């Protein structure tokens, strides 16, 4: 059985429509079953190599990041208490922003992926970690680990494609509502943690009758409880402790949360929506092999180049391709895997998308603007 599918393969600068004749089961990478199997085998080998040699140095790394993050958080909050003096406010807000970024990205996101479960430390474990974010960890683990990582960039299945708010792909239906999406994107970026929190409630599924209202209500209650505690901490208790100087503390905490929101939005959108990253249809993943799944992760992800500090602050999601190939390997090892994955991809003719932050983010912005219009 064959079908004709018109696919736009986008390069950095130009959009080149190509029409291919594909069998329904042909993999979007264009590789045949044997080639995919060989590719998958090489990826499995890389994965097994890291699993067999992860050890004390890795454990020391995450312990160190956690210690630094907590010290930054304490120092940032203390400095904000003296926030009536501008230098203290700036230093405090910067330290608290960095602490929240580290907690959500390099620590929380990765711990909840089970990257550190092998240490068998009950305090640094995917089953127990609760992150500094209004989204309850169990809901995040469902929407992110299960849905997004299994169905990466499959339109209609991966709910991270536009987060149900933004039109990312020309194959998503257009309506007038999309015209406002540059504004929606800015609002989503600013309030990103709330967007993430509401994501797993799947309001559209409830409206379609595919999810019960009771389930959604229970999730909303959990978000309200966790969110309430987060708001109480950042906007009532810590400011109140500063007495007459409550306002600088409150504004500092708000700044830190917004900075973290903007940063995580940017990194995450750069991971899947720059030019050159493919999105897939449900037919693309019919009977997908393990090798096929690996190849789709590469096609559907993009890396961001940068310094060591940049990689850590991005939670090593700057190595989005390696993260999607190996979501449960310790994040500190993605950097050494990247050149090896890239070489294997090039060998197999699988495009490997890696550019600077400004280029990736610029193309994401252009895409959001372009898809506001029909086509």
């Amino acid at each position, binding site marked *: 059985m064959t079908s004709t599918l018109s696919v736009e393969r986008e390069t950095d600068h130009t959009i080149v429509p190509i029409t291919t004749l594909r069998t329904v089961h042909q993999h979007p990478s264009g590789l045949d079953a044997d080639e995919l199997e060989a590719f998958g085998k090489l990826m499995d080998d890389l994965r097994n190599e890291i699993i067999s040699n992860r050890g004390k*140095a*890795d454990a020391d790394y995450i312990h160190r990041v956690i210690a630094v993050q907590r010290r930054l958080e304490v120092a940032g909050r203390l400095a904000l208490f003296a926030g009536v003096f501008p230098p203290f406010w700036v230093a405090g807000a910067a330290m608290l922003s960095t602490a929240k970024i580290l907690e959500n990205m390099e620590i929380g996101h990765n711990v909840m992926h089970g990257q550190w479960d*092998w*240490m*068998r*430390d009950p305090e640094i474990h995917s089953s127990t970690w*609760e992150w*500094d974010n209004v989204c309850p960890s169990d809901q995040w683990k469902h929407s992110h680990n299960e849905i997004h990582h299994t169905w990466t960039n499959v339109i209609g299945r991966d709910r991270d494609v536009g987060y149900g708010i933004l039109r990312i792909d020309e194959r998503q239906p257009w309506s007038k509502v999309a015209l406002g999406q540059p504004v929606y994107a800015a609002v989503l970026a600013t309030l990103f943690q709330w967007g993430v929190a509401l994501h797993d409630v799947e309001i559209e599924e409830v409206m379609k009758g595919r999810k019960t209202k009771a389930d959604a209500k229970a999730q909303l209650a959990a978000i309200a409880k966790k969110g309430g505690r987060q708001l109480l901490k950042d906007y009532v208790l810590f400011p109140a402790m500063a007495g007459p100087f409550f306002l600088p503390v409150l504004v500092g905490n708000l700044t830190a949360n917004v900075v973290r929101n903007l940063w995580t939005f940017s990194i995450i959108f750069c991971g899947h929506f720059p030019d050159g990253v493919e999105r897939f249809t449900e037919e693309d993943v019919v009977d997908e092999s393990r090798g096929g799944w690996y190849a789709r992760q590469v096609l559907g992800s993009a890396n961001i180049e940068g310094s060591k500090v940049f990689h850590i602050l991005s939670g090593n999601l700057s190595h989005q391709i390696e993260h999607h190939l190996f979501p449960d390997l310790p994040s500190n090892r993605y950097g050494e895997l990247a050149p090896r994955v890239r070489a294997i991809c090039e060998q197999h003719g699988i495009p490997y998308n890696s550019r600077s932050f400004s280029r990736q983010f610029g193309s994401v912005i252009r895409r959001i603007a372009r898809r506001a219009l029909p086509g």
Partner: protein
Amino acid sequence: MFTTVLERTARFGATLSSPLPVDAFARLVDPLWSSTVCRARVTRIMRETPDSASIVLRPGRGWESHQAGQWIAVGVDIDGVRHRRPYSLTSVPVRADGCITITVQAVPDGVVSNFLVHQLQVGEIVHLDPPNGDFTLGSHSSSPLLFITGGSGVTPVMGMLRTLDAADVALDAVHLHYAASPDQAIFADELRRLAVRHSGFGFKFGATGTGPIPPELALTTRRLDALCPDWSARETWICGPAPLLAAAEAIWESAGISDQLHSERFQPSLTATNGTKAGIVQFLDSGVETPGDGIRPLLELAEEAGLSPKHGCRMGICHTCVVRLNSGSVLDLRDGRIQSDEGDFVQICVSAPCGDVSLEL
């Protein structure tokens, strides 16, 4: 009034540190500060024999003092991975310096025991579970006592004898101790000195060599009569390898005084019986699958699959590790008993999968 203030302070602190517990920040100041778990710092390591060492630990807040003869599960990070194993406490329960001691015998291929005996450094932090076990003197401190120990089975008894010694009571006890050779006999010198100081304490040592116990040293009624003529009038505590325990249990039973014999195995005698069957083990709650060979216990399989099931003694005593069986059969490695009813509680530390199994873990 005071407690409500404390509770309120604790609740306030927990909200400030949320979603992390207060401990997460307290340990930045002192790694032993915790209100939820107990950690300890290694303050001294004393070699007892070439293959054993006593480790002095200073526990942080939350340590509940133990009874002599009990054990604790000690958690250590080896090559980045947390391992927990039970070890007997050999110190008196309340030392003046607030420290406790465990004594560890390195066993061949024992990852944790070899690490503790040969690689652990003073200053390292270990994790402690509350003390556990009913191999204690109870109300018998002033009764005539008999102790029979083999190898590192001496460790809980050493804790009891040190405690009796410190209590300054007239000791009426006999201790028969077996080890492979005199230089492998943990605490032999201290026990001999104790016998010199207490006229009511007799210490008798037998070197068994490696391999099966020589017939002339085997525990028999006749040998007991020779070494401790009034043995049947004494409350007896025995700890050591399975054959020693089996011999004692038979003797005490035929004398009709089984209730006077208190026994503890220091290592499980896990022997898979015939009928072992490989299969796939499903840990349902964790969504993890792993192959089982029908010989190794479920707890080990789960740990290798990256899970960290709650557990204690790892030898089928404490029931900390029980989980519900969802489907399939499991084999009790101690006695070959098969459990296969849905909803059965399985002690995963001593049970191997028998074919395909799914567990609520």
